């Protein structure tokens, strides 16, 4: 459970991951300051967080005997100053992350863990931007963060012991289990999953099988819980394309370049579940 006297979480970036992490924290009684550059996004995020809290309780994934933590939304980054930990969950772009982490680092008290949530940008690349690199650590939460209990935790080359302890303690307060890995492009999960999804897209584009068949085979034969293309829709196709691009750039492996069909969908605004359509059609967007 959260310890309201101790945990005060700031989440910067109110996209899919930021709102999901906010649900997780608030649902465990931890007060959250959620920051974004857009007021409209924050208003929408408030609605999504209420829905997420209900979703988590429906699935038995959030405690029902804990009063929700207070949610504060703001466009002023200065409001993170009192946080005991900061989760940066902005766009999957090293330059944007670097800028936000640098600013956040200048605002918080020393010894406050700065947690960059990324599916694959090496933490070491971001460390120069912050005042105290030992306070920077990576997490890779899965979506939805409030339903999936395991979190990939990335120890950067400069990450200090106290920061590792801090992030694991916070994860524990939110009922998560962190698995620590070393810093590398895509870490473990994205390095394995994203190229597989990319190939699944190529299989469809090549006409080997349709979307449903690919997912059914991966479910029925290989025990994948949802299938790669449904997973892609859940991740968000824009985010997936970004993650693949950065994986290709940093590994030099051209196979990691996002498949053309994936790029076409992103260009058409079909971003997956969050936009109502990706590889599947979700009808009316309710979540």
């Amino acid at each position, binding site marked *: 459970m959260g310890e309201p006297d101790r945990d005060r979480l700031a989440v910067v970036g109110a996209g899919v991951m930021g709102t999901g992490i906010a649900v997780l924290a608030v649902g465990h009684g931890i007060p959250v300051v959620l920051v974004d550059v857009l007021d409209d996004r924050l208003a929408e995020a408030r609605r999504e967080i209420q*829905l997420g809290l*209900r*979703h988590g*309780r*429906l*699935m*038995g994934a959030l405690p029902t005997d804990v009063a929700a933590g207070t949610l504060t939304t703001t466009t002023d980054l200065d409001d993170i100053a009192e946080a005991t930990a900061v989760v940066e969950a902005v766009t999957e772009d090293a330059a944007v992350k670097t800028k936000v982490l640098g600013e956040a680092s200048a605002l918080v008290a020393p010894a406050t863990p700065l947690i960059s949530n990324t599916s694959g940008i090496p933490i070491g690349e971001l460390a120069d931007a912050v005042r105290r690199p030992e306070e920077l650590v990576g997490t890779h939460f899965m979506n*939805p963060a409030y*339903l999936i209990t395991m979190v990939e935790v990335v120890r950067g080359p400069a990450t200090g012991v106290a920061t590792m302890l801090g992030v694991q303690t916070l994860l524990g307060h939110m009922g998560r289990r962190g698995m620590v890995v070393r810093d590398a492009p895509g870490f473990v999960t994205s390095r394995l999953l994203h190229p597989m999804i990319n190939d699944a897209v190529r299989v469809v584009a090549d006409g080997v099988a349709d979307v449903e068949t690919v997912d059914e085979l991966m479910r029925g034969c290989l025990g994948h819980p*949802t299938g790669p293309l449904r997973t892609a829709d*859940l991740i968000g196709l824009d985010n997936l394309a970004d993650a693949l691009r950065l994986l290709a750039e940093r590994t030099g492996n051209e196979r990691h370049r996002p498949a053309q069909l994936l790029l076409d969908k992103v260009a058409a605004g079909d971003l997956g*579940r969050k936009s109502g359509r990706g590889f599947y059609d*979700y*009808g009316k967007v*309710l*979540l």
Partner: protein
Amino acid sequence: MNVRVEQATRPTADTVGIEIGEFLSERLNTAVDAEQDLFASGLISSMFAMELVVHLEQSYGIAVVGRDLKLDNFRSVRRMTDLVLRLRDAPATEDV
């Protein structure tokens, strides 16, 4: 068309059950029967489960809150029908 007219004259429980069944059949792309355990059969994903709650709330003007907000109430078309009828008859208690 005729089928629709017939349904409208049936008792409420039947109508609600049929509507929920039709919604599920369309969204899950397969026929579902009233007693079928939709979670055990893997038909309903954790993501779709919440959509289903919101769909029922919007379609029937109910609020599923507090102790009612549990997966067990959405396990089958029958359970969902029972929940909808109960909440529509009794004003929702705001114990969120």
